[in-house]
């Protein structure tokens, strides 16, 4: 998962790539999943909400022919939040859908992740379980699809 994310970015320094990967995982967490991870987080900081959580739209773009010029395909709901922790660290989160509490918690974990003393704990206790679950889902979906792959064989016709 993290490997794929780093691939899709052309610019940005290494810490940016790591943060991008972390934020991607937080965005893909389910609401109950991240709520449970937050419940299990022991040293809860003071949190001030700077923005949101608020829901809006993004216009999704496709490409003509799949790889050509962009066109506007249609919109999706997105929720975003920005928080500041007691020690001043600021975290952002954006995710598809309208799960406000999920996005607020994702912003909190983003702020925590940016602090060197918390990063390991966030990666171990929060990001790793989300990444594992996503990978399990992906693997089983891929295997289910693979089971529907057509294996062609040739029928031999004729008398000889």
């Amino acid at each position, binding site marked *: 998962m993290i490997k794929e994310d780093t691939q899709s970015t052309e610019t940005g320094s290494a810490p940016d790539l790591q943060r991008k990967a972390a934020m991607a995982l937080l965005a893909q967490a389910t609401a109950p999943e991240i709520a449970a991870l937050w419940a299990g987080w022991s040293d809860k900081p003071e949190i001030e909400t700077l923005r949101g959580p608020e829901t809006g739209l993004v216009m999704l773009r496709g490409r003509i022919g*799949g790889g050509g010029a962009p066109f506007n395909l249609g*919109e*999706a709901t997105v929720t975003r939040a920005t928080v500041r922790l007691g020690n001043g660290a600021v975290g952002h989160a954006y995710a598809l859908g309208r799960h406000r509490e999920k996005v607020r918690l994702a912003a909190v974990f983003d702020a925590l992740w940016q602090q060197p003393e918390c990063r390991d704990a966030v990666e171990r206790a929060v990001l790793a379980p989300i990444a594992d679950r996503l990978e399990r889902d992906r693997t089983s979906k891929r295997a289910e699809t693979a089971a529907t792959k057509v294996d062609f064989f040739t029928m031999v016709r004729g008398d000889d």
Partner: protein
Amino acid sequence: MYVAVKGGEAAIRNAHKLLADRRRGDRDVAPIQLDQIVEQMSLAVDRVMAEGSLYDPELAALAIKQARGDLIEAIFLVRAYRTTLPRFGYTKALETAQMQIERRISATFKDLPGGQLLGPTFDYTHRLLDPELAEDAPIEAPDQREEPEVFTPRVTDILGHDGMIEEDGELPEGAVAGDLTREPLTFPLERDLRLQALARGDEGFLLGLAYSTQRGYARSHPFVGEIRIGEVEVELEVAELDFPLTLGTIRVTECQMVNQFKGSAKQPPQFTRGYGLVFGQSERKAMSMSLCDRALRARELGEDITATAQDEEFVISHSDNVQSTGFVEHLKLPHYVDFQAELDLIRRMRAEHERNRLDGAETKEAAE
């Protein structure tokens, strides 16, 4: 003199109360839950998202429930809802080549990298009603097959290598993708705006037009180069961060239609293409869209415009089912004054007609 008439408040209030009652139906039957609609009516949800032009399965499910299963009404509700939200921005273009594939078939190549993956399809079912579904028989888990992850190239890229097929469509240098939700349409359109309109267009309308092209009205000799369904990542660039953010994944259906083209003085003969991309799992819509996209490229490709499916103004102006239903259904609203005026006019015309008839008879008698 125009006299405004008011009334009907109580009737309307009671009608809406009655609607709520009928929507709920028999209270002894459990009310349907949104997660049940999302999970078990997922293709209806996909259609509402596609034609409502808003990707949000829970909202689409709510709209379906509120509309009593009337999908065009549900699409209308979703369109109305989207106008209440601010727009945060435009995403980066979806990379369908990187799709986590759930279904992928090609009618042009049997053996292709990644293979033919049937996925959860109605194809090859016998279309016999299954009485067991009326009961709650347990459903077996799907089979799994361990396969190494392989890159599944788009079929059009395979054909593209030797110039047998035209490239993905480009817009003129410096062009920004048009957005029909921001600017009213003015004809003629570029292909980007046509694709936006087709992506949200009514499935039935586009299906009928697509069928007409197969029956000889703007025939384009189509082959399904590829259909793929699966999840793609959505990325957004935001001001507060200097890298694009992953927002999550959405499911889309993509259809690459491959069509013949005899070439021109400038271009050697090659295959041309029609493109379809639709929210959710909807290959009927994606296929119809790609056939219509190809037909609507007649002007660009120097083809004679002889059929309805090639008439951009006709197709795009009538493909939106919210617009269509709005104008067709407004006819049932009170037109009492208009109709009185028409009635008056007809009366006067009839009187005149009668006078003319009598005059004519008299003149005829006088002549005799």
